[in-house]
């Protein structure tokens, strides 16, 4: 017997929660307990009094599963609001990566040239290395990192996705 799995589509969820101890464990535990995917998860407090945090989750699943994820998140006691930004329409997604490349000569020049094309900033440099800061969609960051692999990439750090809906409306 083989176990079957179902294909899904990518969704970006914005979740506002009480900024309390254990909340992240609660959210990630929900995903693992119910077998949902997490492609990326970011969290930081967003209110002046530090009472609220915003969690951005990139997940994937068939529509019924996405619907369940939202309902399951919504029933958690410390969760205020769950918004499916993908469903809601136009939104901006950003991610930052810090990308370290090491090397000398042509590779080094090539790295710098491509960083320029991608509008990555040099945030640290030595005679044998650069650290680039790149901001963009996950796709763009992926592509930049793939190119840097050819140019002496030695280390990457990524923030994961934050996202917000377009226009004047707020959550």
């Amino acid at each position: 017997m083989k176990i079957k799995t179902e294909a899904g589509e990518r969704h970006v969820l914005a979740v506002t929660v009480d900024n309390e101890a254990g909340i992240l464990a609660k959210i990630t535990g929900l995903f693992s307990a119910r077998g949902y995917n997490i492609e990326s998860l970011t969290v930081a407090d967003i209110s002046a009094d530090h009472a609220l945090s915003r969690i951005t989750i990139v997940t994937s699943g068939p529509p019924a599963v996405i619907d369940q994820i939202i309902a399951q998140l919504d029933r958690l006691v410390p969760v205020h609001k769950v918004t499916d930004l993908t469903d809601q329409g136009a939104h901006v997604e950003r991610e930052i990566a810090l990308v370290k490349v090491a090397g000398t000569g042509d590779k080094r020049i090539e790295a710098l040239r491509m960083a320029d094309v991608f509008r990555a900033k040099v945030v640290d440099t030595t005679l044998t290395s650069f650290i680039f800061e790149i901001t963009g969609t996950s796709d763009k960051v992926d592509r930049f990192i793939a190119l840097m692999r050819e140019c002496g990439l030695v280390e990457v750090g990524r923030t994961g996705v934050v996202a917000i809906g377009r226009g004047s409306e707020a959550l």
Partner: protein
Amino acid sequence: MTEMSGADMVVQALVDLGVDTVFGYPGGAVLPIYDALFNHPTIKHVLVRHEQAATHAAEGYARSTGKPGVVLVTSGPGATNAVTGITDALLDSIPMIVLTGQVPTNLIGTDAFQECDTVGITRHCTKHNYLVMDPDRLGAIMHEAFYIATHGRPGPVVIDIPKNVQVATGKYSLPEKIEHQSYRPQVEPDADAIAQAIDMIAAAERPIFYTGGGVINAGPDASAALRQLVSLTGAPVTSTLMGLGAFPSDDPKWLGMLGMHGTYESNMAMNRADLIIAVGARFDDRVTGRLDAFSPDSKKIHIDIDRSSINKIVPVDLAIVGDAGRALDALIAAWADKGHKPRDLGEWWRRVDGWRATRCLDFPEKKEASADIMPQRAVKALFDATRGRDPIITTEVGQHQMWAAQHFGFSAPNRWLTSGGLGTMGYGFPAAVGAQIAHSGRLVICIAGEASLQMNIQEMGTVSQYRLPVKIFILNNEWMGMVRQWQELTYESRYSNSYSDSLPDFVKLAAAYGWTGLRIDTLGELEAGIQTMIDTPGPVIVDCRVAKLANCFPMIPSGAAHTDMILQPNDIVGTMDDEAKALV
């Protein structure tokens, strides 16, 4: 605002919240609270013999009264022993507050004596949990916890209280209004959805009500409303295991329980219906059978207080989020407002009666006095003998549980206490203790299997201590019967580790605890034995020996459709494939 110790605050909050009973077990990390409870004038502390039993007793108390059950246990092993009952309460939506002691805040994280990460361990088996670090917050948390446990879909809430927080002082005041800042369950159903629902009900040719534990949780008024709506519409009613009692079993519109061991008529009616009205039920896998064959031609209305229950397993046509009772009331009002008249459902009822004619709950039986007792017969005899006494029935888990659900009739809610979602062996006896504590004058009977009973049999001591007249009626088949049945059906009768070997002599055990013990061996002794049990004051254990290899039918084998019910043993053909074996 009054300044008091954390322990006093816990007790004061319990008093202010109307708590009269706490089920618990002491230990180092809760000694301050135990001291505050010492000789308390209004709060009765029931000392169990194992913390798991405290949680099930609290569930029994809650399920039989509608009030939240309260548990008090120490840190570490006290808390971990409570986890099964907490999970049981989560799955069956039972309101429960569990107060756990914790090592002092300065020792948290140091692997201190009897330290465990209680909030971590219970994070996913509670509706919500708290670690109280500040005595000034303790009172508010107590009130908030009760609010959360009892509002919306009920469930267990754990409050973990470090020992120094119990000793230190803080400010306590009675909150005026408790409202959680983010938790606002939707109770009132949407009016448009109600209007749409009532039109669908009025137009249906083959409607059926499929009700669940949510109707019980919504209180006795919800059960009354269900009866009224059913009589207005004339539609048949089935229910889940958890919903038994919401609709009277002697009503002609009652089809019996549905699902894996439900009646043929319920399952066929669900399959052939053109409209299912699900009320406080969650399309559990025990109920639906094979999903792609579940009620293929029906429209579905789903009333539930938990939005995440809707469309979780079965996509529905109309969702009504809200309290089951309020929704039923609104449907009744809408029926009158719109001037709907009951449809002629004669054709539908003729089909239902056709399915009923299979008499699916009949069982083969010898009638002579010396014959083995069929377990179904024992349940029926128990039902007949207790009619008019309004008993509270609890069960353990296994075949006996299903036979009790099939053959014991209930005419009111809060009389049937069973572990449905988690299926916890060891639930039934302590649940009976909790129910008996709440209803001292009532007849409370635990219908038990000999294997399940042994999972919390130590509670016989609790019963003796509090002089509770609990009756345990064991359907003793000397097997973990439900396991043996699956092994017979799925594994060619290779009975791996399912024999109840080395059983105690239950009659002698009764004597050891100061109970009355009885043994019933043959059909001829059954009625008199049951009568003696009822007539004997104080706790009684009845070791009722039943036919050892009886199986529980009807049955929808795992992975099969409602229409593929096995009605009798000789319907079984072949062995199961891996796909079916992989299903629980």
